[in-house]
């Protein structure tokens, strides 16, 4: 006798869970203000990005054309598909001491999967993810970028 009770209970709990799903979709069907898709080319000027949207890696420079990258290559090691290549050089300080610094921070956008591991790995928060996303170009070479600006140098006190 118990199995019949169990059977009927199963049927009713199944119907109940389906009804919950139907109620939710009917709510969405009748509430068009909840629509989350953006009409992209039309609202290009007023696009709203979610916080975690990642477009490309950039390096932040301040007004003195200084960045925070020490050339430690932690990001290069963290990158799973060799997107980042750091070319280092040695600055000679006024006292005659050699100091390691970056010459070029080469970033291959065409290889990047926006996994964010380099940004996590960076000890000095020199790089971050930007939200630009219109990356189409006519020549593949344009996707290989040098992130540090010309003549820029590492900020004082960043080790």
């Amino acid at each position, binding site marked *: 006798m118990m199995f019949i009770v169990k059977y009927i209970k199963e049927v009713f709990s199944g119907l109940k869970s389906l009804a919950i799903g139907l109620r939710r*979709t009917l709510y969405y069907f009748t509430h068009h203000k909840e629509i989350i898709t953006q009409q992209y080319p039309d609202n290009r000027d007023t696009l709203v990005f979610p916080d975690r949207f990642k477009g490309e890696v950039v390096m932040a420079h301040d007004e003195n054309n200084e960045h925070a990258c020490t050339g430690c290559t932690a990001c290069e090691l963290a990158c799973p598909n060799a997107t980042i290549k750091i070319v280092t050089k040695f600055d000679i300080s006024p006292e005659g001491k050699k100091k390691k610094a970056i010459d070029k921070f080469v970033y291959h956008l065409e290889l990047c999967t926006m996994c964010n591991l380099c940004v996590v790995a960076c000890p000095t928060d020199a790089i971050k993810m930007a939200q630009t996303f219109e990356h189409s170009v006519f020549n593949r070479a344009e996707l290989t970028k040098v992130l540090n600006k010309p003549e820029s140098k590492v900020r004082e006190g960043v080790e």
Partner: protein
Amino acid sequence: MWSFSKISNILDSWLSETFSPTWTMVIEMVIAGICVITLFALLGLVLVLMERRVAAWIQIRLGPNRVGPGGMLQSLADTVKLLVKEGMTPDGADKFLFNLAPIIAMMVAMLLMAPIAFASNFQLWDLNIGVLYVTAISSLMVISILMAGWASNNKYSLMGAMRSGAQIVSYELSAGLSIMAIVVLSSSLNLNDIIQSQADGWWIFKGHIPVFIAFLIFIIAVTAETNRAPFDLAEAESELTAGFHTEYSGMKFALFFLAEYINVFIVCAIGATLFLGGWMPFHIGHWEAFNHVMDFIPSSIWFFGKTFFLIFLIMWFRWTFPRLRIDQLLDLEWKYLLPISMFNLLLVTLMAILGWHF
């Protein structure tokens, strides 16, 4: 006031005055054929657009909104695209069966159109075993699917076709039993008699809970019979790429696509006829004044309104429920729907004998 039956009567009397009876018959058949094909094309366009809109709104999207005002011409543009595409036949395919399958799918859909009453006194073929005819013909749908799957010479297609065979053979039982509930109550197999028996209230209201259960089972079973999600195992986009129409392209694919939507329309029309009174306006018992007001709404609007309500219901199911696996699908039929509908049929029979319905 103009109505479908009046137009058809005027046409009939004019034709029989002008031509001999044989030619009248031939011309009327041609006109009916053209009307059915036009209806098919229109339904295809409207239902595809409706499906995409409903899907989009349920998934918090906007849906087609670029072609024409508010995206109204999207399905027309899709049709033109499919028309100009090349219809390829694979090398290893059984060419005759491969090309025959979509035509059979359409033919089945056309045959099913015959006994449906679109408005009062407006029906292609008033036959006295309409319900039996519909259940018999609708099981032919599986032949076109099996044919397509076999002739494609593709393992995935064959697998999809075989699944569809298992699915339709099992779900036909509970669809038939839930239709039987209405046949028992109205004691007729004629679709017109069934509609007339609902003049004082639709069966879904007159028949209490057992008929409501029968209605639920009917909706579930016909969703499975038309191979739509959550029972779309014949197509199974995720695991069989597209099942039986993997190898089809161009207009042959479009015919399958169209046949699916026409079948949805037809099963919803049958459901509306059996449970919601077909073209019969909404009547409540002996409220003469209320019934009289309801009679002013044309019967064709009642029919199409109910049918499209049921189509919306089926679309709503499709975009809410997760898909079933093949063993879950057969479990649902043989362990749940079939026993419940058999027990339900007994209850309905008891109700009909003791006169417990209104």
